[in-house]
């Protein structure tokens, strides 16, 4: 296993006290002791999730990156086993019954290793691993860490004229972590965009921002959510209450069941069944937005903001659905710029 500090490759026996025999730096993980990955693999996950250290991410983003990596290792194996089983079976048919036995064994092994739909590593287990990494290597650069409320007042005093202004657009989410992801990556700053969760996050700015949103009758609202019954019904919910002026337009750009297939292996078991769950995919599973890498979330949301022309009116009459946001690579105009008047 390679040390991430000095890159020395060492045998298990040489790693006394979980330390590198050359530079003595500690290892956070030891696969021989049952950890699902090495320090190098964890570091590679950090590099990938942060797009080379340029994008900030939540612990939920990192969790799914690790899930992908721990499951990725076994992804090719079942296909190889299945191919060998079929090959043995054919040999058994055409050559000798002797080959039926390995075919049977290989088939059983294939079933055991076949990738599932659900995440096998729980978030609780991941959190323990992250805690150990933090202890040994420090908090990863780019990991979004909220300031403790004790460091400042819960509701910050803003210059008084701020409340008279508004935003061109707003992103409303179904969970606070998505708000964190967008704000920490300056999405609000780059796109003159309010970002809020429907349940009141971020608390210090929530009331002021909600008031400001009502100052713009032409507000464009983008709803970004998990593939859950609650998330998928959020746009409809917002369209029928008094969050915005009636003339605001609302666009659902969240994850929906049709986006789920590429993320097999990261699905979660659905929560308690409700009438909103219906009888389809949502009745059995859910998919968290954090499964999409931050760079992709930001870029695809930006495209959705830019490509308002290709919107399709959704099932409700009061809002639009942009189902392409997480499944297309449409190019976008980015407009704006310096002006000479």
């Amino acid at each position: 296993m390679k040390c991430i500090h000095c890159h020395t490759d060492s045998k298990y026996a040489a790693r006394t006290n979980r330390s590198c025999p050359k530079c003595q730096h500690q290892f956070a993980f030891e696969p021989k002791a049952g950890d699902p990955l090495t320090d190098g693999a964890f570091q590679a996950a950090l590099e990938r999730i942060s797009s080379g250290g340029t994008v900030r991410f939540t612990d939920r983003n990192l969790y799914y990156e690790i899930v992908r990596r721990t499951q990725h290792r076994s992804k090719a194996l079942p296909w190889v086993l299945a191919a060998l089983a079929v090959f043995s079976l054919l040999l058994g048919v055409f050559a000798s019954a002797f080959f039926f036995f390995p075919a049977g064994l290989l088939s059983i092994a294939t079933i055991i290793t076949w990738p599932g739909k659900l995440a096998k590593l729980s978030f609780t287990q991941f959190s323990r691993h992250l805690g150990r990494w933090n202890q040994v290597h420090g908090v990863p650069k780019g990991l979004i860490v909220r300031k403790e409320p004790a460091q400042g007042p819960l509701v910050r005093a803003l210059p008084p004229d701020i409340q008279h202004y508004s935003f061109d657009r707003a992103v409303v989410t179904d969970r606070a972590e998505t708000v964190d992801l967008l704000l920490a990556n300056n999405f609000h700053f780059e796109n003159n965009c309010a970002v809020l969760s429907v349940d009141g996050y971020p608390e210090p700015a929530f009331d002021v921002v909600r008031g400001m949103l009502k100052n713009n009758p032409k507000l464009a609202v983008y709803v970004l959510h998990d593939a859950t019954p609650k998330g998928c019904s959020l746009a409809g919910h917002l369209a029928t209450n008094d969050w915005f002026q009636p003339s605001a337009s609302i666009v659902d750009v969240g994850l929906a069941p049709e986006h789920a297939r590429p993320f097999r292996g990261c699905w979660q078991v659905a929560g308690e069944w409700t009438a909103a769950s219906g009888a389809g995919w949502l009745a059995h599973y859910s998919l968290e937005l954090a499964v999409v890498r931050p760079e992709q979330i930001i870029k695809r949301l930006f495209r959705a903001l830019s490509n308002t022309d290709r919107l399709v009116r959704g099932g409700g009459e009061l809002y639009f659905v942009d189902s392409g946001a997480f499944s297309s690579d449409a190019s976008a105009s980015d407009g704006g710029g310096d002006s000479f008047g």
Partner: protein
Amino acid sequence: MSGICGWLGQGAANTLERMLSAIDYRGDRQDTVTLPGVALGYRFWNGRKGKAPSILDSDAELVACAGSFAQRVGSPTALIADRLRESPPRLGDLDGAFAFAHWNKQAHVLTLGRDCFGVRSLYYVEHEGTFYFATELKQLLAIPGLPIAVDPSALHKYLTFSFVPGEAVPIRGIRRLLPGSILRHEHGQGEITSYFRLVEQIDESMRDTKTAVRAVRRLGKQAVQRRLWDQEKVGLFLSGGLDSSSVAAWLKECQADVHVFSLDFGERSVEREQAKLVAASLDFEQTWVPVNGERIAAVFSDVVHRLDLPFGDPVTAPQYLLGRAAREAGLNAVFNGEGGDQLFGGWTSKPMIAAEVYAGLYESEASSREERYLRSYHRFYGLEDELYTSEFKREIGPAGQRRAHLTPYLAEAGQNFLHRVRLADLSLKGSQNILPRAERMANGWGLDVRTPLFDRALAETAFRLPPELKLHGACEKYVLKLAMQTALPEEIVWQKKFGMSVPITDFVLSEPLAGIVEDHLGDSAVRRRGLFRPEFVQALRAGHDAPSETRRRRVGERLWTLLMLEAWLRRFVDGAGSAP
């Protein structure tokens, strides 16, 4: 148009000649006066209205004045002399695009001054005991024996702002007088004082929207009227946005003879239809100026030379082409719509407001308004580790020097937030970037540039308006829109702002500009210069930006910023400012 220079001390006669020759495109005549210990030079176009016909040389004083006042005056030099006779000098009501030098023969005091918004520039340097000054940097570089060494901290600021802010310029030892200031040089000592500063003082009567709208309409028209002299035909650079369209409408109301010039980026044009609509609705003759990579490449070298300082906004080359078209049409003066965003609350305020609302939520985020503002320039702030070589990084000076340019405005207590952002925009981006570069691109073609939205009375009134009349909810320049809604087509006034966006990424990544980029920013050129990491520049040349960057145009903007800097270094440092 026109330029001045001079010295205090022991300069050589041919030095004055060299300094005037360096700006030969600013006039076909020159005038010089040399007295023991002092000399003044003036380059100008013969017979141009509103300009001084020569250096004023009276018993009491010598006065040279470049540029002109907003309102036509009998003699600009006599007016300056008049005002400087008073103590303290009374410059409070002067408006226009001017830079002057005044020598008091009795008191042996030299006074240099610049207009309040910074249309014209003035630089100075002390060399071998002589104090030199000039309206362009390249004139000072013509001084024989002047050491020309780069100031890395000024380059560092350029790479953040896309222009060089403040008094320092990228050549060590040379300083710039800031807009609205005068420098008094006496007994070998210089003292700088400011005679102009915009302060927000809300006028209660302006809380009545109708009163405010009437004031803006009246002052806007007056600002245009003041800048129309006699019955001359004038040009207008019309983008189709609200600001230049408003100037067009006021020119129409003043019954001016107007020829408009608009940029044509072909399929990539953003506001072409709007520019066409405005010209047609006001019945103005319109000339389309095609802009593409080939045309920019053809004038690139001359653009660098005439800009005088590095300016990293790609709008300069199209402005140069506009100026050339206006000159070819036989015009001497052009109007533009610069200043609307700075005065009336354009879109640039919005990111700062969003950032203010959400500030302080996370560990390791930009903690101050100044840092957030620096990020809004979208150049290399925050990318220093990726771009700078370790050698360059060691030389750029202490932390906080960029923030220091903003603190006087953004940290101003007791003022509305919008006012603080507007003031920072006006003082930095407006006065040190937009106005000087526009002046140089127009004056490079012998054109007198007129910027009525930077009219002093109009600007002072804009700072007396309640902030919600500027940014009304999310509606930018609200009061200007209300003022113009009966004079312009509805879609021009109430349309969503797109901005005059130059498709620079497409241009710099394709031939022939890609060849110029390769020559200036190829691996070997970058290594030779030693400022930047070649791999970062190479990624930009390949069209790759940071993964977190959502807008493709940033690649072109960043590449153009680096290209202009390298081209500027070659001409002004390696070549000491020589003409192409």
